[in-house]
Structure formats: C-alpha cells, structure tokens
C-alpha cells in the first residue's frame, strides 16, 4: 500500500474563516494530520445558536448547528478538531506541548494576537526549532497596516482587482467569490511544502509571513509591469481581456442562461461563422476577420447573440465545441453538481457526516496518479478528537483532563 505524501506531517491549525482552512484542507487532502485548535467562545463554525446566513442540511440547524454548517464542513474535511482556550495560561501550556510534537503551526489572526498570547514565532521556535510557523494576514506581519483588519473582499479592493473586475464604464465590482482568500490559501500551502523541503535539507524550521494582498498581487503581474512601462492603469473591460484576442459572454434561450465564447485566430473565426450558418453579416467588410471583430466588438457581440439566443446554453456549447470553437456554458452550482464531465472524472465524492448526513462534496482539486488522495473522513464535530489528542498524543491523564474541563481550558460544547 502506498502512503499519502504528507502522512508523517502534523499541523496545528489555528486558522479561521477561509484562507487558512483552505490551506490546511489542501494539506490534509494529501495526508497531513491536521488538528484544528478551536475556541469554545469564538469559532467560525459557530456556537449553540444558528449563524445568520449559514447553510444547514435541509435548512435545519438542528440541536448542534456548529457541527452542521456547510461552509465549515466543506473546508474542514480530513481534519481533526480539539477545543482549547489559548487565552488561559493552562491552555497555552497544553498548546506548547503540542508544538513540541508537531511540524507546522498555521494561523491567520491579525498580527498582534499570537504575540498577545505569548505564542509568537520566537517562542514557538524555542520550544521546537524545527517548527514551521505560517502566519496569514491581510497586510503582512510588518508595516504601518500590519494591524489593519480585512476580509478577502477588502483585499481585492486594495489590490486593484475589484477596480478592473467591472463592466466597461461600470462601477468596481470584484469577484463574486472569496478569491483573495483562496489565492492566499493556495500560496500558504505551497509555502509549507517549500519550508518542509528546506527543513529536510537543513533541519531548521522557519516563519512564513503571508499577506493576502501580496499573494493576490502575484496574480496581477502583467498589470504592474504595464504600469511600470507605460504609466497607465488598466480599466474595467467586462469580459474582454488584453491577453485574449476576442471573447464575450452571450445570452441563451433559457432564464439567466449564458455562454462564453472565445476566438483566438481567423481559422477559429471562420469555424464560428460556419457553425452559426454564415449569416450575411459574416461576409461584410470589417466583419470577416479577427482584426475587424476586435474593432467592432459590440456590434459583433449583438450579432453572435442573435444566434445564441435561439439555443439553450448546453446545446449551444455542444454545437460550437463540435466545430472546434472555444465555448463554455455558464454553469450554476446545480449544473456543476450534475455535470457529466466532472462526474465521469470522479470530482465529486459522497460523504456521510455523523451529524449532517450524506451529501455530495467537491473532492480533490487535482489528480496524482500514484497518491490520488480522497475524502478519508468528514469534517470533525466540535471537540471530537479531544481524547485522541490530549490522551493519546500528549498522555494527559483522565483526571487532569477533567480538571482542564472544570477550569474551562477544554470543553466538549461551544459556549457561544
């Protein structure tokens, strides 16, 4: 039997919301033992009351909504969870014992928090010189904004991405998903692997300082260079793109149904004209080559839409793809979940969560031929792995655990 690549790595996950949990999800998928260290008073999984806006199975929060949130359960599969109050001295002592036997600590508090706990990098490094500490924050661990707060959407604004994710001459909108968080999570997981390999070569751990804003700018380099070269700033341009010759998004026959189409050269343009039965406009001067299409984009958009509006987006996609045209239906969550391609690729996995029931989950983000990975276990319930971690890993006696419970250092249910 082949083991998973990271199955000897133990990660203490103090992170909340999206960026950090997505990083540790990726590492857990590849075999790392990720232990979520959660507070009984402030956890993003929520407390005894249902969270506004949260999605629960069949709309029912149940008695323990904190074990049934879709948001939490998607991001935290393959992980373990303990409850530990780091604001108490005794809680920090237990945490330090865990640091001794772990490889990575990942946190995304604002930068002052770990220091206030007395758990900043120099302290953790002294306990375990091999420890890799990843600190994810909005603006980074240093600089005048270090203690400024932001979620991913604010970071997209501060990075120039919201400004250009906009319709032509429209107001700034930004991505409709937590894009800066996902991007930071991916870079953070990559940073962990870089640091692990460095440790394998040198025996030394290190501190990673990852700013959401900087890791998002890494995906906008061509704009930064264009500004450096030409002193100009990109503008919102709808679905056009400076690095793509011609493309757009067109209305189809159904309700809110759309298709994206891209044309990269004159051959593809000809195939598209053929596929839509060569209406007379395709013969007109200025409408029969890519240069002309680029000059008359809006008019061409309307003419293409006269064809797409007669088809639903799935059949339009099939017709166009069969003619070798870059076309993709704009899918919603329902269509993606039943998409035949993703199904056949095994992208989705059926998982039974003891308190949330059986559902279809998005699975591995990629396929490794020898070490494919899968959802080995559902997201943990609150404090589910207290016995394993405190008892088996740390050897804390049952009496001592009872004491810690009485002192409120560990708990079995969230308080709020």
């Amino acid at each position, binding site marked *: 039997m082949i083991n998973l690549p990271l199955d000897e790595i133990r990660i203490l996950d103090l992170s909340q919301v999206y960026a950090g949990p997505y990083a540790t999800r990726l590492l857990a998928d590849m075999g790392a033992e990720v232990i979520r260290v959660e507070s009984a008073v402030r956890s993003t999984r929520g407390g005894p009351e249902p969270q506004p806006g949260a999605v629960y199975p069949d709309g029912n929060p149940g008695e323990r909504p904190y074990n049934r949130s879709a948001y939490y359960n998607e991001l935290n599969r393959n992980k373990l969870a303990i409850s530990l109050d780091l604001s108490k001295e005794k809680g920090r002592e237990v945490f330090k014992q865990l640091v001794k036997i772990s490889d990575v600590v990942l946190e995304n508090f604002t930068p002052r928090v770990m220091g206030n706990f007395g758990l900043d990098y120099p302290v953790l490094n002294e306990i375990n010189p091999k420890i890799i500490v990843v600190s994810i924050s909005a603006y980074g661990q240093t600089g005048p904004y270090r203690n400024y707060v932001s979620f991913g959407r604010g970071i997209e604004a501060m990075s120039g*991405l919201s400004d250009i994710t906009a319709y032509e001459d429209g107001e700034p909108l930004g991505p409709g998903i937590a894009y800066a968080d996902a991007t930071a999570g991916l870079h953070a997981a990559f940073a962990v692997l870089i640091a692990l390999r460095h440790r394998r070569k040198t025996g030394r751990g290190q501190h990673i300082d990852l700013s959401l804003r900087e890791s998002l700018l890494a995906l906008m380099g061509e704009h930064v260079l264009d500004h450096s070269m030409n002193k100009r700033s990109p503008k919102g341009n709808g679905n056009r793109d400076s690095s793509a010759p011609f493309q757009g998004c067109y209305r189809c026959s159904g309700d809110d149904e759309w298709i994206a189409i891209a044309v990269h050269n004159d051959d593809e343009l000809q195939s598209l004209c053929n596929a839509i039965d060569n209406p007379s406009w395709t013969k007109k001067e200025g409408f029969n080559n890519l240069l002309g299409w680029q000059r008359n984009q809006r008019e061409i958009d309307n003419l293409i839409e006269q064809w797409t509006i007669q088809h639903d987006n799935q059949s339009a996609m099939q017709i166009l793809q069969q003619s070798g045209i870059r076309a993709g239906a704009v899918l919603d969550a329902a269509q993606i979940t039943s998409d035949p391609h993703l199904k*056949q690729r095994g992208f989705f996995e059926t998982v039974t969560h003891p308190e949330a029931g059986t559902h279809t989950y998005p699975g591995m983000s990629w396929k490794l031929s020898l070490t494919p990975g899968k959802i080995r276990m559902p997201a943990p319930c609150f404090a589910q792995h207290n016995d394993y971690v405190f008892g088996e890993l740390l050897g804390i006696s049952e009496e001592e655990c009872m004491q810690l419970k009485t002192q409120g250092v560990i708990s079995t249910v969230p308080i709020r």
Partner: protein
Amino acid sequence: MQDLPLSDLTVLDLSQYVSGPYCTKLLASFGAEVIKVEHPNGGDVSRRYGAFPDDTPDIEQSALFLYLNTNKKSITLDYETQTGARILAQLVRQVDILVENSGPGMFDYDSLAADNPSLIVTSISYFGQDGPYCDFKGADIIAQALSGIMNLTGLPDHEPLKIAGPQAEYQAGINAALAIMTAIYFRDGTGHGQHIDISVMECLASILEGALLNFSYDGTLRQRDGARHPTMYPSTILPCKDGYIHADASTDWEIFAGFMEMPKLLQYNPEELREKAGEIDPLISSWLAKRDMEDVFHRAQEWRLPFAKVMGVDELPNDPQFVARDFFTRIDHPIAGQQTYPGAPFKTTECETRKGRSPLLGEHNAEIYCDLLGYTNQDLTKLRGMGIT
C-alpha cells in the same frame, strides 16, 4: 548562490501562456533550474500578447512574458521534428520535473516514465486528461464559465462577468506548483515519480466559497450580486467623495453604527440587514458622499472595521504598506530595461527568493545544448539551419 530549497531540482518546462509558466516561476524563484523550451518560431505565445512599451509589439518586451518567466533559462527547440524529439528525449532523462500544458494526448506519461522512472510529469489542461470534455477547446473565460465563477460574478441583471485577467490560468499554475511540491516531497522519501493531472475547471470549482456544498445541503443557489457579500451586510463597494470604498461592518453592526454616529441604524435587527440592503445603502451612501476615501479608510480601521480602498493598479507602487515591506522589486532586462515587478507572494525567514529576469528567446541554447547535452557549436549551427533550434 545560497542553497535554496529547490536548488537540486531541474524542471523541463514545455508550457506556455500563463498556467504552466506561473507554476515554474514559483519553482524557479525558490531555486529550481527551469529550462524553458520555446518554439524557434516566435517562442511562448505570451511573448506576443503584451502589453508592450508604447504598444509596439516586440517578443522580448511583452509584460505578460517578462513577469511570468523570471529566473528561467530559455532554449529553442521544435520537438515535433524527428531530431527535435530525440533531443527532447535526452533532456527528459536529465530532469526531475516536466511541466506541459499542450492539451491531452500530446505527451504519454508511460513512455516518458520508461526513460526516467522518478520523473514527475505535470499536465495542465482546461478540462483534465480524460472525460467527456477532454477534447473541448478551452480558454481562460471558458474555464471561468464552466467552473461556476462567472455565474457568481457581476450584476444580477447583466451578463455574468469573469474575474479580470487570466485568473483561471493563474489558479491552475499555483495548484500545479503545490501538487508538484507534494509529489517531490513524496519522491524525496520513496524515489517514486508520478503523473499529475491538473484540470483548470476543477481547480476553479474547488474555490466557489461553499456554493457547491450549499446546494447539496439545502438546494441553495446563490445568485451573483455585484460587490455584495452573499450573506453579510454591509460588505460591499460604495462611492465616497473622491472614489470608491469597500464598506464593511461584518464584524460588528453596533460598532459600525457608532463609527457612523448614526444610532438610528440600530433599529435594524442584525439578522435582517442583508435583505434590507436597499433601504440601508442610501443611509450609508449619503454619509460616505461627504467624506474622503483615505480618511474613512483609516478612521474605520481605528474602530477595527474592515474597510478598504478601491485602488487602481497605478496607486499600488507608492502604497505605504507595500513600500514599508519592500514588496515590489526592480528588475533589469537587457531590452526592456529596469521595470517594477511584484515580489514574492510570501516572505520567509530562511529562504530568500531569487530576483533574476526573464530570458531572451533561446538565450541559453549554448549552455544547455553544449554544456549539458554535449553538442558542439557546429552541431548547434546545423540544428539552427534546419529550423530545429
């Protein structure tokens, strides 16, 4: 050179445009030797996409190429010729990692692995190496459409919008770099290589902020809603006196009302805020309309409210936080000159990243063909004459 974490690894990079190049850019910046193989006739397509200085096309001055290929070596090779294929096979035997994004079927993992069993082959494609869409033709916008991102981005009464820039490609690139590092870590321990199959569509479907599991849990189908957060209020973009600001009270409505000195906001129950957005927005907007963006941003932060400025790319290089952290770097290039580039996506205490430039087309032909593979200068001239290099 400092012993960087990947300085013992060689990458054969057959990819072009954005996804593969961003992946190998990350590997190169942490020390890997990346040999970028470009077609002798013009090289990587990103050399032709720009932007260019003064909009004058020049394959050595494309912003997209210059950014994505720092710290790499470039050789020219037409490996679709017989001789070219033989040379490629020689290269494959000398490297640890191969990265390609030519589409399914161009490279056969089994025959590559027969020559070099510990090789890690990374194939990036829009839809993956198999399945009903595997022969579909893709593009960045096509992947953003089919993966669900576009349906969630843009205004409800407008066409769906893509995230600006080749973001689907970038996402595939960072996913590929992470998958490669995982496979390298496994190989370090076991000696085994493997084949990595990256589908752009799947990378994107993995980051829909819960939209897929939400649907599975209770049938929720989120609609695109401009700059608004799907559940929290306010978390949206609104105009102020001199620009746009991301207004955000999602941490605490009472603090928000205090910050705005508008106690009447407290008449709203925090749980109904999102649905009453149409009613509350004008109250916030009229307050913002009288105030400067910079001032509101910093004052809100004093109240620990996660406000943010909607900044243009032109404002970034002089931003005090970026300056204090020395984020942007100046890199010199023999033709494009000194330009400003984004720095590393994260800072480390132990491994300084490389700060080299992108290569000229075929700049390292002599080094790779002669020094590494043992061809003579005459051989190289002959290959060039045949159009192979």
